[in-house]
């Protein structure tokens, strides 16, 4: 069932340039943040939304959550146009901005939740049940009486998530939710999001710079750049094209004779052995291995695909982003 429909969405910003010498007023420049983006999302999907800074990710999310009014095109979420019927629309959505808080800084988080209950007009019984469930799933019980400002970053993000899900939104926007979190917090956050998506069929749209978030959570990924949609599909499909490089880490025992590497292999001698990277389609792996083997007595060897972050960087570069 199609839930979000976006067609040819456009948004411009007027940016004031730096004042030039001798001019009284600064010149204005029109920046196209979105140049006609279209996509649709089904109910219950978990979609990752990536792109370099300034690609228009946040702009899209802000339009879909009713914060910004677009300059052209159309969008609807569950049949509602976000910026036209803001109040009706936002009842059904939850938003978590990674770097800004929607809870109250100086008061215990339970007080914040109580106020959110009134703001969203959540019936008392629903509220209690939902709060119990969320605090358990997010392990928030012991912090309920602690003011937000005294929580760690990971705890704070969990508290924010709880706050944005109290009213059982059908759609959850997450803007860089794992930014600055430690490994344990990231993992548990991802687990929670999967659980919420499975249990309630909540549609989740996630913008992030962390490819592991996408790999762990999203069945579908959209790439945005220069205000345009560049890719829409499975992460694997996206990476196949860029997944060309293999990294080898090799350690020898004893003397090593001079290794004659074929052209195209990049090598780097480190204290802890040798790092190599090569492209299997150019140099067959078997050929490289036999060269390495003949050079000495191998004590350790690992062979890995390139890190996803590098692939994305390569992709951005190729697409000239």
């Amino acid at each position, binding site marked *: 069932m199609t839930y979000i429909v976006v067609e040819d969405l456009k948004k411009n910003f007027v940016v004031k340039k730096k004042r030039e010498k001798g001019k009284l007023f600064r010149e204005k420049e029109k920046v196209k943040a979105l140049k006609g983006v279209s996509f649709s999302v089904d109910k219950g999907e978990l979609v990752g939304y990536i792109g370099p*800074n300034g690609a228009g990710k*946040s702009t899209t999310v802000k339009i879909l959550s009713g914060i910004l009014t677009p300059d052209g095109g159309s969008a609807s979420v569950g049949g509602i146009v976000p910026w036209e019927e803001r109040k009706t629309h936002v009842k059904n959505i939850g938003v978590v901005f990674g770097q800004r808080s929607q809870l109250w800084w100086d008061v215990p988080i339970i007080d914040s939740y109580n*106020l959110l209950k009134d703001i*969203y007009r959540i019936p008392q019984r629903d509220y209690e049940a939902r709060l119990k469930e969320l605090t358990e799933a997010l392990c928030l019980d012991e912090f309920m009486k602690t003011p937000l400002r005294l929580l760690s970053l990971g705890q704070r993000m969990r508290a924010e998530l709880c706050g944005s899900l109290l009213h059982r939104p059908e759609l959850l926007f997450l803007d860089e939710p794992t930014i600055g979190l430690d490994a344990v917090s990231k993992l548990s956050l991802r687990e929670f999001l999967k659980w919420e998506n499975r249990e309630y069929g909540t549609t989740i749209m996630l913008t992030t710079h962390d490819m592991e978030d996408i790999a762990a959570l999203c069945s579908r990924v959209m790439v945005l750049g220069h205000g345009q949609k560049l890719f829409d599909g499975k992460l694997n499909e996206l990476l196949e094209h860029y997944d060309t490089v293999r990294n080898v880490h090799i350690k020898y025992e004893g003397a090593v004779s001079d290794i004659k590497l074929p052209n195209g292999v990049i090598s780097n001698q480190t204290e802890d052995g040798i790092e190599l990277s090569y492209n299997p389609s150019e140099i067959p792996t078997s050929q490289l291995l036999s060269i390495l083997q003949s050079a000495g007595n191998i004590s350790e060897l690992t062979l890995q695909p390139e890190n996803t972050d590098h692939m994305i960087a390569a992709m951005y570069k190729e697409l000239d982003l």
Partner: protein
Amino acid sequence: MDIFRLYIKSIGMLLKSHLQYTSSFIMQALAQLVMEGGEMMVVILIVDRFEGLKGWPGSNLYFFFGMMSVSFYLTEFFGRGITGNFPSMVRTGRLDTFLVRPRGVLTQVLCAGTDPRRITCIAVGTAALIMGSRLSGISWNLLKVLVLVESIAMSMLLILGLFMIEAVFSIFSVKSVELVNAITYGGRSACQYPIDIYPVPLRALFTVIAPFALTLHVPASWILDKPLYGWPMWTAFVMPLSGAAVFAIMTGVFHLALRHYRSTGS
């Protein structure tokens, strides 16, 4: 009613968090006391030296001062979201979080700020009001009390409306604090004295554009039994409503401006 409950609850919560920093709060409240006390002292010094002001005896001046002070600082106490915090709400993206909640933005902005330090200013204003009333020998009756309450309430709406000019500017990320201060704080400074002492352009400004003359001076003069310009009694009831009108107009402008809001930050 529902909105009112939400407001009370929000403000209650904010008060609680303000009071967590007790010593800082007391310090600032004292600073405010000295500040408003200083303003009051200036009026006393003026009365001491000049005795009266174009037909208004000193006792009346205290009354006007008290009316303005109470209205202005009640507004800052309860409307801090608009009178003080709004530009930073835009800057920090807090306005975004209001926009993704199913409540009016203005409601949420007002729910998000209170300035309890002003309590001491309100106290000074009340003292001036009582002092002015006693010295002027006002004979209070129910009608006069009603007009007083209406006048203060409408002046508060007017002041909120004027501060919303700044809010609208900051939505367009135009820095305008000083210009808007001219009309808000300038209005307070000018209109704590009776309006008819000023030359015509100033009078026009504070009657038509920022109608303190209508919300404050007309009813206050009627309470003092010296109707402004000799206007009839009904004007003391009807004219203050212009405060609500200004507020309503500015609310409309505010919402129009929100359509052009460009949320900053990534």
